[in-house]
């Protein structure tokens, strides 16, 4: 019984991990075919990545849009989470539903709706529009993560601070924020990762000047699956591992 569970579990794990691990070595191939055995190892596809007119700007765009939208989502999301945690008020459930809506509405509906809303206002095909869209998609993650961090925070501390004469702002920044900082940071990383992964909205809302990595990969996969695309995929996977590590590190002390 136990052995069977292990056998099934390990097979499923292999199914999860192998497809990603198998692709990574391909990007170091000296040849140009998408299969094994590799004719030799080289960095030529990475050289092609960095020399291309498209990939490097796409990487920068991804990082730029990701950090701007994560900052915006955090700026709006943290106070909102704090407000939702502080008091129960009428309509709180509906507010929560509105805030979580971007997680539930399918991306394609968001993409077309935003294209039609942003287009006439000159926001489509701009960094501003894309950042705003991604911030809205990322903000539920910030709110949820910060709420989770706040649930471990003892509200008595705030009252104690108030009793000592600290105003609510001071109390928040001096007493509360330091305790929930890992949660805030994790929320920001989630928002960043959401933006980094987002393909559909970018496809509809971004112009040639805002091509991000996923958008460029989508075009590349549609066009010609060269090993440069695999090099880009490997870089993106490495970026994901970094983010995963960051979140694991941030959430460790809280556990």
């Amino acid at each position, binding site marked *: 019984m136990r052995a069977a569970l292990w056998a099934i579990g390990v097979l499923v794990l292999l199914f999860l991990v192998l497809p990603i691990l198998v692709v990574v070595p391909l990007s170091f191939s000296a040849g140009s075919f998408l299969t094994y055995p590799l004719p030799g190892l080289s960095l030529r596809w990475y050289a092609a990545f960095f020399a291309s007119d498209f990939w490097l700007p796409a990487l920068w765009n991804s990082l730029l849009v990701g950090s701007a939208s994560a900052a915006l989502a955090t700026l709006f999301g943290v106070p909102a989470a704090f407000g939702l945690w502080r008091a129960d008020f009428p309509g709180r459930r509906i507010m929560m539903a509105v805030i979580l809506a971007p997680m539930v509405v399918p991306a394609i509906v968001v993409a077309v709706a935003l294209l039609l809303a942003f287009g006439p206002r*000159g926001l489509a*095909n701009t960094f*501003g529009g894309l950042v705003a869209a991604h911030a809205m998609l990322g903000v539920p993650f910030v709110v949820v993560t910060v709420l989770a961090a706040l649930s471990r925070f003892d509200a008595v501390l705030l009252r104690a601070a108030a009793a000592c004469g600290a105003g609510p702002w001071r109390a928040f920044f001096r007493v509360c924020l330091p305790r929930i900082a890992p949660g805030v940071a994790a929320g920001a990383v989630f928002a960043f990762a959401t933006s980094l992964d987002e393909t559909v909205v970018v496809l509809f809302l971004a112009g040639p000047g805002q091509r991000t990595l996923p958008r460029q990969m989508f075009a590349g996969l*549609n066009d010609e699956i060269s090993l440069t695309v695999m090099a880009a995929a490997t870089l993106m996977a490495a970026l994901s591992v970094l983010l995963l590590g960051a979140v694991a590190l941030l959430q460790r002390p809280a556990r």
Partner: protein
Amino acid sequence: MRRGMWRGAIGAAVGIGLALFGAAGVQAQGRDLTVVSWGGAYQDAQREIYFRPWMQARNQRLLEETWDGGVGVLRARVQSGANTWDVVQVESEELLIGCEEGLYERLDWEAIGGRDNYIPQAVSDCGVGAILYSFVLAWDRTRLQTAPRGWADFFDTRRIPGRRALRRGPKTTLEIALLADGVAPGDVYRLLATDAGVDRAFRKLDAIRSDLAWWERGSQPPQWLASGEVVLTNAYNGRIAAANANDGRDFGIAWDQNLYTLDSWVIMRGSPNRQRALDFLRFVGQAQNQAQLPPRIPYGVTARAANGLIPNNILAQLPTAPQNAQAALQIDDKFWLDNLDRLNARFNAWVSR
């Protein structure tokens, strides 16, 4: 302290907002010339002989995009108010439809070298001819020993078993179905104008439906042939030749009953880069620049003087070469102007079932 915090927070938020939208505004006014073409080996060639040299000569940036056709895409761009494209290479019926619907700017012919600089087919109100090309039947000689003789063989899954690909959409697909069904090239469009003719074409397609794959980008057919994904495909003639020349492939081309047509450059309506766009088209229209294209990818070009600068052995590979042109069916753009939307709807319903 408290007030300071408030001010700081609001200031930061407003600052970020202004920076973002300011950046957006600046970009909308001074964006770079954006040229849209068809990707793959073709756009690689264009980049080498048109895009990069133009950027160097004018010391300006040029952004590239790729698309795979469809007048709807252009309508969506103009009508959603979210257009960033300046110069687009369009197919012949897209030229007519879009010109009528005001999707393009009227061309200032004097600014691009005058009408006489070009062959007559290349001249119209909204567009200037870019290339002359053909849809041909192609296969990989290293995999397929029995060479297909024409579209009839394309539909003969017993003679040549395996998956085969056509371009997604009614244009070319319906013509090919009728040609394969034994319709003479001269009768194809007369038949397609009737419901019975369209039914006949779809019936023919139904017969090999489960063996059909649909490509959308011009780079897909050579790639699918190379990877063995399909045994037969229709394809742009240039992509097949380019794969043979550059990637060491051994693809065969059947010129018999090829579908011959012309693509044009247009300037999108309301482009803020109209002057630069015209300057770019003038550059692209110069015979000595155009003459560089066929050696890289064998498409016919539209400047009158260009053919004189192209070596004979290359001229013979072009769709315009007499032996190739005489076996061709010219795609009827007037027919597609009147019928594209209708047949598109029917094709889309048929293909997604």
